[in-house]
């Protein structure tokens, strides 16, 4: 019997009512009295020298308030990067200045050159068209390998080359890995591309700057996954505003997927311009702007080698990756191909020796940063593809080869510096086999073939690392921030609770799931608990939501704060019942004295805390409000086994997903309905990457996939019903909820099985296909079949 409340139940989401009735409060729905509107003039040239910006005609256009260029930002800091990587030679990465508006040169199509603030958005746009830009074209650098060649044009003239860093991990293993590959009984090599993607949350970015002259306080309303991080980065590094004079609000946010983590120049601009113009300044991104200004994702080119001994045991993995940074370093860009990718290269397997080399490269393209999974999909894709290729070369079953090499004892120290606390990879594979009916595949293939289609089955495993932590470790790795989370739990006199969390919900359902945890702890109804997030004025400090960290880190902070509340409430209850603290038990919202029939209700205790007439004032303060900061001891490690069955039309090369199955281990589950939904969405994005989505630049740095007409977003008729299961649960050992995180799993786990399935289908036609690069468009698949 499923639970109807508390941990493990699936109550309907309370946030849905406002979204379903048009009463959401997204940033673009906010309008401030007297606001002006900004339109950014963006470069349509990928690389060039700015010779002149003539704003005279534009300034005379109707409604224009003020026009800004780089000259207005002298003395203002650049957009900071939040992670400094040290290369394999011990040198820190090359880090170019990232100006608010382009200085001297333009470096990608979409870079902001000037900004027009006007009375209306249309007037701002009209006036921007009247600005005369004089830019001398320079050769654009688009291809990563060409960018590193001698004599390549440089994206940044003040850097020594286009190489941001050359990272080796674990550098001490380099020679041993080389030797193991040289001595191996078998080596499988695969070269592949992890295609560049555009996150495209359905809500485009919006920023509203507001300045209150009497108090000198600035407020920024923005579409962010982490308003406190924006306050810190923009306040401390760009505009020089201390936290107590700067409030950042991220209200309802329409999806993030990583691309709303980062601090963007538009946010700093609106905050700056509101003060300069002495009125609120609003920017609403068009989708066309989003394509060329939201940070892109992925874009790795990799060679991976897997060494096996004569018994098919994995003995070593060596990878060589080029990772595109784009023209500037976005907030967390340097960490993605390094610490979020290299540390995952053990996957689910006990490979003893691993070496990962990553060259991060500047190009004349939009900055690239974290997108759902961030580094972990790239690690999983190459590893699970090369294992499939090895199984084919060796003539062994791909499931058996994986099982043979699974890590089976926990905790497990990988050779890439992480320690998995728990997992059971055979259990998720068993569950997958049960769900997928591998035995029946032959018959399903025969049916497809009768209908003139090729059918393929692909499987893969994945391991994820969520809730990146602890702060003292990530500090050593180059993070310029802590990675804890905070929560303040405020109990009101009549017993209701408000939780101020630093986590941020932009679709994940915190307002519903977080109260389930507290309801379970205290034994009260979820309707008595309200979740407040997204405003730096309410929550003491927060690191936000990304990397599947909300429940594992933010939820744990909430648990710690609630434990403090319960401890204090027990003291009050003990006083009310004239008993000892140690004898007080809390169950179903009642405090009782063990072994007696004495009890007081939750509400009696909370009332006493605020009306302390009968209260131990000499021992404890009145009131009932507690804050906790939670800094995890380790990552969490969700894992799973996925399968995909495809049909390929040999006439057209079109791939259709017939079945997509996911057996995940997320540890304990608070709300199964929400977890299912997270997996579904991840699967759709993973299938999108595998079959449909690809961000394409031409050789001149022009973005060819710059609208929903050119960039293939997955639509309802591209996708099947998914079959998902999370009954395999090995709880996390180091957080109080035993939870692991589920937000990115689907996007990490699905691309390899889709590609493995298509390759399997093509082989069934007698083609010795070893790989097809994503997206597996009809033309690429047809080419693989007929080429």
């Amino acid at each position, binding site marked *: 019997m499923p639970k109807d409340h508390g941990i493990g139940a699936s109550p*309907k*989401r309370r*946030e*849905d*009512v*406002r*979204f*379903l*009735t*048009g*009463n*959401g409060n*997204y940033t*673009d*729905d906010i309008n401030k009295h007297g606001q002006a509107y900004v339109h950014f003039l963006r470069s349509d040239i990928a690389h060039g020298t700015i010779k002149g910006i003539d704003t005279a005609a534009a300034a005379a256009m109707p409604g224009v308030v003020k026009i800004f260029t780089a000259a207005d930002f002298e003395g203002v800091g650049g957009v900071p990067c939040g992670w400094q990587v040290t290369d394999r030679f011990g040198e820190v990465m090359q880090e170019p200045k990232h100006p608010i508006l382009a200085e001297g040169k333009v470096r990608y199509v979409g870079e902001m050159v000037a900004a027009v603030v006007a009375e209306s958005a*249309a007037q701002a746009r009209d006036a921007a068209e009247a600005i005369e830009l004089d830019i001398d074209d320079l050769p654009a650098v688009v291809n990563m390998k060409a960018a590193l060649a001698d004599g390549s044009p440089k994206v940044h003239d003040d850097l020594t080359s286009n190489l941001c860093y050359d990272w080796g991990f674990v550098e001490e293993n380099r020679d041993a890995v080389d030797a193991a590959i040289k001595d191996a009984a078998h080596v499988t090599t695969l070269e592949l591309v992890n295609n560049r993607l555009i996150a*495209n*949350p*359905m*809500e*485009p970015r919006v920023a509203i700057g507001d300045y209150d002259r009497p108090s000198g306080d600035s407020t920024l309303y923005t579409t962010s996954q982490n308003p406190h991080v924006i306050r810190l980065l923009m306040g401390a590094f760009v505009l020089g505003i201390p936290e107590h004079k700067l409030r950042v609000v991220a209200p*309802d*946010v*329409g*999806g993030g*997927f990583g691309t709303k983590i980062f601090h963007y120049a538009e946010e700093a601009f609106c905050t700056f311009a509101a003060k300069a113009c002495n009125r609120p300044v609003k920017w609403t991104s*068009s*989708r*066309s702007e989003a394509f060329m200004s939201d940070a892109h994702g992925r874009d790795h080119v990799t060679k991976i080698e897997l060494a096996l001994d004569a018994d098919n045991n994995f003995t070593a993995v060596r990878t060589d990756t080029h990772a595109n940074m784009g023209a500037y370093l976005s907030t967390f860009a340097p960490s993605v191909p390094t610490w979020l990718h290299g540390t995952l290269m053990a996957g689910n397997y006990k490979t003893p020796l691993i070496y990962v080399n990553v060259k991060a490269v500047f190009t004349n393209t939009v900055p690239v940063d974290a997108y759902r999974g961030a580094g972990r999909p790239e690690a999983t894709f190459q590893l699970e593809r090369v294992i499939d290729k090895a199984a084919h070369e060796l003539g062994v079953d791909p499931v058996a080869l994986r099982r043979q090499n699974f890590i089976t004892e926990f905790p497990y120290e990988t050779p890439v510096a992480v320690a998995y606390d728990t997992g059971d990879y055979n259990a998720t594979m068993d569950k997958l086999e049960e*769900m997928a009916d591998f035995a029946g595949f032959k018959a399903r293939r025969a049916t497809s073939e009768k209908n003139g289609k090729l059918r393929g089955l692909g499987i893969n495993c994945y391991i994820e690392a969520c809730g990146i932590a602890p702060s003292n470790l990530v500090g050593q790795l180059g993070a310029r921030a802590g990675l804890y989370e905070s929560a303040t739990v405020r109990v009101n006199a009549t017993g209701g609770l408000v939780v101020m969390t630093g986590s941020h919900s*932009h*679709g*994940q*359902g915190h307002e519903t799931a977080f109260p389930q945890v507290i309801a379970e702890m205290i034994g009260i109804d979820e309707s008595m608990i309200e979740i407040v997030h997204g405003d730096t004025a309410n929550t003491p400090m927060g690191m936000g939501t990304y990397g599947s960290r909300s429940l594992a880190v933010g939820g744990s902070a909430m648990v710690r704060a609630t434990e403090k509340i319960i401890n204090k409430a027990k003291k009050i209850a003990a006083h009310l019942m004239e008993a000892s603290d140690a004898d007080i038990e809390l169950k179903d919202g009642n405090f009782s004295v063990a072994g007696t029939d004495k009890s007081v209700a939750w509400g009696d205790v909370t009332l006493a805390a605020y009306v302390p007439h009968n209260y131990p004032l000499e021992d404890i303060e009145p009131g009932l409000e507690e804050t906790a900061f939670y800094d995890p001891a380790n990552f969490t490690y969700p894992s799973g086994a996925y399968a995909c069955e495809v049909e390929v039309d040999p006439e057209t090369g079109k791939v259709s997903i017939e079945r997509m*199955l996911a057996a995940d281990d997320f540890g304990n589950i608070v709300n199964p*309905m*929400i977890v*299912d*939904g997270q997996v*579904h*969405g*991840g*699967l*759709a*994005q993973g299938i999108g990457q595998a079959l449909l989505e690809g961000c394409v630049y031409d050789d001149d740095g022009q973005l060819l996939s710059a*609208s*929903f*007409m050119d960039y293939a*977003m*997955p*639509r*309802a*008729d591209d*996708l099947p*019903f*998914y*079959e*998902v*299961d999370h009954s395999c649960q090995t709880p996390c050992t180091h957080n109080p909820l035993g939870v692991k995180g589920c937000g990115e799993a*689907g996007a990490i786990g699905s691309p390899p099985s889709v590609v493995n399935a298509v390759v399997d289908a093509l082989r069934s036609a007698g083609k010795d296909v070893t790989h097809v690069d994503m997206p597996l468009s009809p033309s690429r698949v047809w080419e693989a079949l007929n080429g």
Partner: protein
Amino acid sequence: MTKVSMTVNGKAANGDVEGRTLLSSFLRDQLGLTGTHVGCDTSQCGACVVHVNGEAVKSCSILALEADGAEVATIEGQAAEDGTLNTIQQAFQDHHGLQCGYCTPGMVMSATALLKDNPKPSEAEIRAYLSGNICRCTGYHNIVKAIMAASGQDVAIAAE
């Protein structure tokens, strides 16, 4: 500026608009009906779907002046006066057919139009009809389920 008047969710609505003002802008900026969302500028995403004279229309792709004199229905007019969700809205909540909520108003308005024309659509018909509404969160699974449920159909799916 030109005067425009229409009926929106059963109430008279008037305003002065430029010739280039889109219906989506008129609804959002002049009437304050911000439930209609704008998610693209190429008429692809469907977040702005409303009904004009009973037909589903992407409100970013018609001018406010084209809707002069029309009956317009938006997401704000779908629930009962007392806030009770209608059948389709309720099915979206029951089946977790929304996450961030941004595409949701357009999804609900499209689903409403679909069920008006086709009260018992098949899964394939629902998916084909929704190809003009992009959702980035749900992978469509629970949206399709919700629409099947709202049309009184069995939503039993393997592994659930």
